[in-house]
């Protein structure tokens, strides 16, 4: 399926990209991360969390949304 990856804060800066579409056929967040690490090597040594449907996911979570967010450490307040 076609999914949109959104990069926030520091991650948008280092990937040079706020949002990109990709064709994705794997099933878990872990799979997705592998693909993203190949595409953007710089992500490997960055701390980030992944969210879909406005909730944080673990590596084992299945990808069910067509929009995935990569979130660097929070800095609100």
């Amino acid at each position, binding site marked *: 399926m076609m999914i949109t990856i959104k990069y926030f804060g520091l991650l948008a*800066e280092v990937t040079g990209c706020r949002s990109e579409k990709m064709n994705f056929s794997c099933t878990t967040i872990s799979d997705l991360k592998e693909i993203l690490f190949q595409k953007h090597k710089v992500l490997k040594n960055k701390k980030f969390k992944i*969210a879909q449907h*406005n909730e944080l996911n673990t590596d084992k979570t299945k990808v069910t949304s067509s929009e995935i967010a990569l979130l660097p450490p*929070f800095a609100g*307040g």
Partner: protein
Amino acid sequence: MKNHKLKNVFREGAITTEFIANSIAKHQVKTSIGAHNIFLGQVRADEINAKKVAAIDYTAHEDMANHKFHEIREAAFLKFDLTCMHIYHSLGMVKSGEICLFVFVSSKRRKEVFPAIEFIVEEIKLKIPVFGKEIFEDQTHQWKVNS
């Protein structure tokens, strides 16, 4: 549990003292309130490697953030006996000395507002996907991380 509707917590730029004053004034018709507690986050001119923070440029995963703010609100109303609760967070540039976070709780009794404000602020720091680019006076920057 009261069912509050999803609000947009974000405001463009710094939160002004006039906005805060107006917000307080609006509660003076609610005469069952005996105690208000207000938390304000202010951008610090931290010095990092001899460079001073001049501003923070805030961005957010706005949709997720508003959902998380909503969850925090609902949890706080459930945990504490509050009459009112308001949360505002800045997006975009906020200069050092300016206010970027405004949390406002009101209750009949003071005992409720102290733990409520701390709960809400800590939850915000922990759970809200907001990102802060600390802009130094020389226009270089680094990314802020909450501690």
